[in-house]
């Protein structure tokens, strides 16, 4: 039988799914073991047990200096920035995407401009952003927005253009104005794609968040990672990385669920 037709059984499948995670863990453990055997206070690859201890401490014990559990504060600060940035960017992208997708005049005006904007590497214009938007919360949110907005606009306007012309013509024959077509035909059909697009842009959003927090911040997940880099506290960095990965994964999952829940009409098939 050809390899492409060979399906793993349930047990084998579960094993296979777990395998790479296990291998990664074992490889790490061995690497850590070797380094620690040489230098017991090596910080680079802390033993998994050390990471577990550190994680427990970070999640439960308040910081000596500030008497707050830093990890939760960092998480709250970062999530707030992320949600604000992604939320504002999504709202803007939806509006601009609808305008570009529906109105030929706006399309002519903005499509090329947005395409060029999307090529500017946001990290390079960081100083300008700082000066214009200050160093406060605003600048971090703005960096996220600047980072993902061009992509979102391009994606969403593309999606609007992909809405079957038939539906729009049909709406016209029902007497719909441009506004009604935008609100009642295009917008609802755009929503599932918006969630899709937001899922795609969450990765870059995290990236820009971390970059912004690394540059000027008092709290936040990215801030902490770059701060403790100063004394090579890899146990803290790894805990934070795993935590961020987990958060990102949960957000992605939540958005997928949300989409299924909110837009049953996209899923339901005969």
């Amino acid at each position, binding site marked *: 039988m050809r390899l492409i037709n060979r399906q793993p059984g349930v047990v084998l499948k579960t094993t296979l799914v777990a395998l790479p995670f296990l291998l990664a863990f074992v490889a790490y453990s061995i690497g850590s073991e070797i380094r620690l055997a040489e230098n017991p206070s090596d910080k680079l690859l802390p033993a998994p047990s050390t990471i577990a201890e550190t994680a427990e401490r970070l999640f439960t014990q308040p910081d000596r200096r500030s008497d707050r559990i830093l990890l939760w504060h960092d998480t709250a600060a970062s999530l707030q920035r992320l949600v604000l940035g992604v939320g504002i960017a999504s709202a803007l992208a939806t509006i601009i995407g609808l305008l570009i997708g529906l109105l030929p005049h706006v399309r002519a005006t903005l499509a090329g401009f947005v395409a060029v904007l999307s090529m500017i590497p946001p990290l390079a214009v960081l100083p300008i952003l700082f000066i214009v938007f200050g160093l406060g919360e605003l600048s971090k949110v703005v960096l996220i927005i600047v980072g993902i907005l061009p992509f979102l606009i391009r994606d969403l306007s593309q999606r609007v253009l992909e809405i079957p012309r038939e539906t729009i013509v049909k*709406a*016209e*024959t*029902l007497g719909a104005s441009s506004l009604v077509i935008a*609100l*009642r035909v295009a917008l609802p*059909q755009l929503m599932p794609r918006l969630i899709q697009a937001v899922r795609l842009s969450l990765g870059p959003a995290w990236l820009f968040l971390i970059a912004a927090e690394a540059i000027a911040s008092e709290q936040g997940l990215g801030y902490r990672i770059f701060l403790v880099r100063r004394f090579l506290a890899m146990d803290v960095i790894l805990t934070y990385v795993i935590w961020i990965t987990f958060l990102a994964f949960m957000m992605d999952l939540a958005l997928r669920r949300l989409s299924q829940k909110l837009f*049953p009409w996209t899923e339901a098939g005969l």
Partner: protein
Amino acid sequence: MSFVTATDIFQFYGRRPILERVNVSVEEGEFISIVGASGCGKSTFLRLLLAQERPTRGEIRVADAPPAVEPGLDRGVVFQKYSVFPHMTVRENIVAGESFRSRFGWFSGAAKTKARKRADDTLARIGLDHVANQYPATLSGGMQQRLAIGQALAAKPRILLLDEPFGALDPGTRLSMHDFLTELRAETGMTVFMVTHDLEEGFKLGDRVLVFDKPRWDPTDPNAYGATITYDFDARDGGIPFQRIEEDTHVLQPA
């Protein structure tokens, strides 16, 4: 005067002619079937009737009004696919037939209740009342097209344009849709243009059958000339001419 008149219609896409010198006039209440080889411009002609596009030359007038510049309430349309709004339930789709002409496309309060009531009546008439709260994607192809027609009619257009409305359906479902359409038409007495691939269907349903074909043919460049109406059959005798034309046109020649 005729109800719909198309005068000397030419349509080019870029430099390529699709339609050439199309002339036709149609009385109010007539059912016009349009047949022709694939790609000959039937849908293009329907788009012109719909005012979704404007002809390169010539003009189409309805009830002697100036030519329309865009689709509007007076022309209903049903396409082969994408004819209903996938994000609305069946009932909402019918309500949309009335509510879309309002400021924000929404009814509220009493207007909403009344519109829902009327929509339920429509649904009962087209036999979709049992699926009023489902989304179109859960319906069979036949039900979707029935919904599309019901929705188009909810806006009470003066002309109904159908582009291969039953092209994607089973033969069985197709037959029942024929009955459905015949009934509806008897009720409303609307003017209908229907594009179809199926000659039999065209003759069965239509009062007249327009055959689109290229009057001139350049064997080295098949796109050199556009199509026009080569035959205009009176089909009220129930499809008998079917056998007669089969030899005359190249509608049925192998592609």
